[in-house]
């Protein structure tokens, strides 16, 4: 549904994104993850035809965003970083205006406005002036604006920023419910958010795509090791030496804990050595109190990725 090829954008001489490639399948919810200034908004603005790329192409529903901009704009709903609201309008008249410029037939407009207000839970504020709504309600009006013409593709730039926890959950549920019928791209710099709502994640950092996969696979793929946590009672130095002898262990760190010793092990990827470890420890007569795989949370991958970039 969305194909992005070698997308590059320079603001003057400053690079914002470079050679960004990714695709989004129909009905998929894609998370677009990156820290501040990674180039998320820039990419989304190009996808929504707000501005042209310096180099590369992007296609939405088979139409080039530059050549067939009007066709693309008909099919896209876009929630920019700051919801584009007219503060002196009431919610319903604002949505009425948006429904007109999105090309909805006049006999359908009132119905669509009602539906979308229902869906975004803003019916109770429909006659209020937008400028006087709370941040959370403004965000929802922005979301309603993006949904009003029932677009095939939705581009949502940090839709949960500034919401309270309850509202965040509601918006996430809403986004999840959009998948299947709609193709959705959601940007965020908050990890749990994308891992909760998205089937696939593209991680972007300093203008470049650094990873692209399902939230689960990213965990396995990105780091060359898995972590194991061990708690053992016995002579720390001796245990450490014994652990270092186990095949597949890359690194061991020890520290005393409550009269016992805690060990943090890094082992080779996709190789579960917990069985060998436990038999080794029990065989030597030490006391095994705890053993568990720590896996890798996306959060760590993310930190890993971004710090690695900075070191270069």
């Amino acid at each position, binding site marked *: 549904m969305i194909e992005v090829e070698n997308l590059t954008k320079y603001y003057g001489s400053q690079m914002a994104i470079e050679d960004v490639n990714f695709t989004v399948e129909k009905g998929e919810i894609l998370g677009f993850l990156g820290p501040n200034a990674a180039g998320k908004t820039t990419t989304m603005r190009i996808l929504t035809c707000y501005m042209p790329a310096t180099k590369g192409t992007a296609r939405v529903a088979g139409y080039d965003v530059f050549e067939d901009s009007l066709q693309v704009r008909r099919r896209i709903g876009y929630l920019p970083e700051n919801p584009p609201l*007219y503060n002196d*309008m009431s919610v319903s008249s604002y949505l009425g*205006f948006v429904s007109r410029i999105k090309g909805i037939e006049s006999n359908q407009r009132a119905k669509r406005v009602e539906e979308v207000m229902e869906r975004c839970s803003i019916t109770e504020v429909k006659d209020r002036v937008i400028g006087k709504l709370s941040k959370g309600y403004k965000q929802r009006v922005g979301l309603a604006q993006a949904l009003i013409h029932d677009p095939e593709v939705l581009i949502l730039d940090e839709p949960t920023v500034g919401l309270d926890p309850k509202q965040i959950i509601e918006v996430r549920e809403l986004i999840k419910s959009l998948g299947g019928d709609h193709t959705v791209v959601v940007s965020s710099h908050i990890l749990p958010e994308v891992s909760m709502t998205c089937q696939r994640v593209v991680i972007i950092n300093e203008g470049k795509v650094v990873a692209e996969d399902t939230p689960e696979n990213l965990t396995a793929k990105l780091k060359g090791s898995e972590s194991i946590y061990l708690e053992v009672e016995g002579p720390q130095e001796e245990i450490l030496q014994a652990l270092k002898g186990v095949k597949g262990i890359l690194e061991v760190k020890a520290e005393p804990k409550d009269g016992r010793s805690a060990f943090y092990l890094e082992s080779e990827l996709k190789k579960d050595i917990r069985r060998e470890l436990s038999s080794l420890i029990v065989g030597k007569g030490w006391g095994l109190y705890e053993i568990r795989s720590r896996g890798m949370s996306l959060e760590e991958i993310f930190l890993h990725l971004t710090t690695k970039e900075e070191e270069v």
Partner: protein
Amino acid sequence: MRNIGAIFGKEMKSYFVSPIAYVVIAVFLVISGYFFYGMLSSFVQLCIRANLQAHYYRMAPPKLNVNEWVIRPLFHNLSVIGIFMLPLITMRLYSEEKRSGTIELLLTSPITRVETLLGKFLAALALYGIMIGATLLHQVFLFGYGNPEGGPVLSGYIGLLLEGAAFLSVGLLISSLTKNQIIAAVGSFGAFLILWAIGWLADSTGPGLGKVLSSLSLIEHFDNFSKGIIDTGDLIFYLSFIFLGLFLTYRSVESERWR
């Protein structure tokens, strides 16, 4: 066409929701009414004096022309007062969209930039039309109590509309260059004053340059209209001026995206 209507409607609503429309119309009416009253009363005094003199010398009373003495100067006054009011009409048209980010909604919706531009321009022109239309009240008095010629009145209004449209196109251009509506207003005001006064320079420069300068002055071309003359040269001047202003605005909005 439908999209132009949507933008037009939105802008009109915003003029009348924020008190801009009422303020502009009311202030314009008060000031123009004040000048109108001044001119009318001095015209009446002039008539009385002329009649007394004629009576004294036992001659037929002179025929003083209300068109020449009241209506023509009134049109000139209206066009000058307009210079002060028009920046308020155009100042927020683009700058406010840029400041609040709603420009992102407009540019990513399936409407063209030309449609947006025309919708905004026509809304500004409509408000201006209402503003000068309100001064028809003054004319009602003249037609009620005197018998001025209708032709010059009509051509004067046509001239006012064209001249105002030309100013509006410049105001729209300046509004598209900034995010700040105050800067847009002050900038437009400055530009209007220059476009208005450029003809004065003409007198002090040589005949060659002077002619060019005076032909650029928006007021210079208005003169014929206020006399009741509709000259194709003036018409073409205004229409091409408006076109140029709108074209440059279009380019300015467009070039923003490339930066």
